[in-house]
């Protein structure tokens, strides 16, 4: 156990292996979610589980197709896999529809988030770095978007384009562009005068390099913290539109649509509404909680700087 000996074993490994081992250990350390409360740890694990179940829904043994009847109409919940939440008015498994609905919702919301992040970060960087006209434009856009209820914006667009998964994704993608742009803009303005940016400029870095390689990495924690609550907002908006009948078109399972569908029979089969409600409330709760957790970590990090 001499220091020399330890050193020998490390060098005996091929260098890339040692690198990998160290990276892996750092990854594990991060997986312990430092300073997370039990509810926060639960939320993170719930979201990981939800994504895995949604991604591998086709490989869950015994799970029936969400679009075909599998049993009695409106059968109450029982302890079989497909009957866990009961069956809907057409005899389809509600659990299966909740799971495939999760996949649909996650795909739409993730794609919309990517759209709004890419556009928002781009616009926000232009606004924060060059100020002037770009800043006024971005401010006007962000103010306008926040002055209207998200459901109304999408309804107005849907009134002319009609409903489909594609228009749903694109219109949801527009909603948060202003928010991401505003946060990026604020971040760029606060970072722009720091010494490391000055140093990069002194070394001859151009605008693109300063923005993308120097400033952007420092905005990652702040931006990451706002993603989960904004995604939760998109899930609620998407659910509201499906509930109102302007969301994902009918046969495809969606949480909002399932809740709307079960209200016709709710006085006779109140238990059948439990599944989709549980899914959407838990998902939104978990996303909000993870968002709070990340925001607190950003706060701690900022104070340490």
């Amino acid at each position, binding site marked *: 156990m001499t220091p020399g000996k330890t050193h020998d074993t490390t060098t005996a490994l091929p260098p890339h292996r040692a690198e990998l081992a160290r990276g892996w250990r750092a990854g594990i350390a991060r997986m312990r979610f430092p300073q997370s409360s039990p509810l926060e740890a639960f939320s993170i694990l719930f979201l990981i589980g939800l994504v895995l179940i949604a991604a591998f829904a086709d490989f869950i043994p015994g799970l029936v197709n969400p679009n075909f009847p599998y049993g009695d109409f409106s059968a109450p919940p029982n302890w079989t896999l497909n009957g866990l939440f009961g069956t809907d008015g057409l005899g389809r498994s509600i659990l299966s529809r909740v799971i495939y609905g999760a996949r649909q919702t996650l795909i739409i919301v993730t794609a919309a988030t990517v759209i709004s992040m890419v556009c928002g970060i781009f616009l926000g960087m232009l606004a924060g770095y060059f100020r002037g006209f770009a800043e006024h434009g971005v401010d006007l856009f962000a103010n306008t978007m926040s002055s209207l209820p998200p459901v109304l914006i999408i309804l107005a667009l849907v009134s002319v384009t009609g409903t489909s998964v594609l228009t749903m994704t694109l219109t949801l993608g527009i909603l948060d562009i202003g928010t991401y742009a505003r946060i990026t803009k604020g971040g760029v303005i606060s970072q722009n005068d720091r010494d490391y940016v000055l140093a990069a400029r002194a070394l001859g870095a151009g605008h693109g390099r300063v923005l993308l390689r120097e400033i952007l990495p420092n905005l990652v924690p702040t931006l990451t913290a706002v993603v989960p609550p904004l995604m939760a907002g998109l899930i609620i908006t998407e659910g*509201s539109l499906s509930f109102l009948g302007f969301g994902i078109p009918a046969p495809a399972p969606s949480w909002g649509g399932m809740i709307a569908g079960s209200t016709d029979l709710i006085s006779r089969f109140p238990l059948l509404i439990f599944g989709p409600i549980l899914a959407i409330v838990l998902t939104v709760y978990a996303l909000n909680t993870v968002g709070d957790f990340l925001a607190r970590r950003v706060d701690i990090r900022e104070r340490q700087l």
Partner: protein
Amino acid sequence: MHSSATPYLKALGTRLLAGIPVLLLVTFAATALSDLMAGSAAQAILGEFATPEQIAQLNAAYGYDLPAWQRYLRWLGNALQGDLGHTLYSQQPVAQVLFDRALVTFEIAFAAMIFSLAVAVPLALAMAARAGGRLDSALRFAASAMLAVPTFVSVVVLSLLFSIFLRWLPATGWVPFFDDPLGNLRHLILPVMCLSVHQVAYFFRVARNEFLATLQQDFIASARAKGFSTRYILWHHVLRPSLPQVLTVMGLSMTYLLGGSFIVESFFAIPGIGWTVLSAVQDHDLAMVQAILVLTVLIFVLVFALVDLGYALIDPRVEVK
């Protein structure tokens, strides 16, 4: 009195003027919407069996064959004279229809806001005083759980509970206040509760954190040293300095309440703005959709002007410019 109120009025005017670009952007976007329709807008609205005469008539009335900027100038000119166009099928003036519906929505939204504040602010004061206690933690968890309940879930659950199981409240419908005040109240309770699930939690959360921050201030310590009771300190020293933040949140929640009214009104069959916009979207009634967008933005601008005015009234140190 007159001279002291003038700067406030001026500030209000400035804020309202600042909202004009937003208003212009939204109305122009709303006019340009019809260009997104597949094929010609008139054809899409009237359906595939429309005759050329019908299409020509619709184009003459609404100008869907003109470029967007011409349509916009025409709309803007009419709107400035108070003419927002006519509804597509019943040919009623949009402004008149909208005014009747807006009153219903405002009644519900206003009642929900008052109710939420009345529940959340005293609770938040009490919990800020015993922050970290068991009751405080329980309520904080309850608040974050309630924030995760979308309006379309609360309408279903609360109507199941109060009108199907308990049979206390009517499940659907609406009675105008001036026809039957008591009936109006009975129909108002469920929609207000549904909107308040989210609002109570939101106000509680913001207000509690704000009160807690105020409690850390030095002037609270000196008030305690003077021997005031905790209750007196909470109501007389903590409440007012914390109000600006609560006021901001009230302004922001207007947008939420209007968005929530779409769900609540369609579920309970209440003839308000939300219900109107849904049928307008179904009918491709673009004049109506546009008018509702204008109204929403106007409300937003007006509310935030009032919020700014409120800052100055609450805190004399805020300078009115």
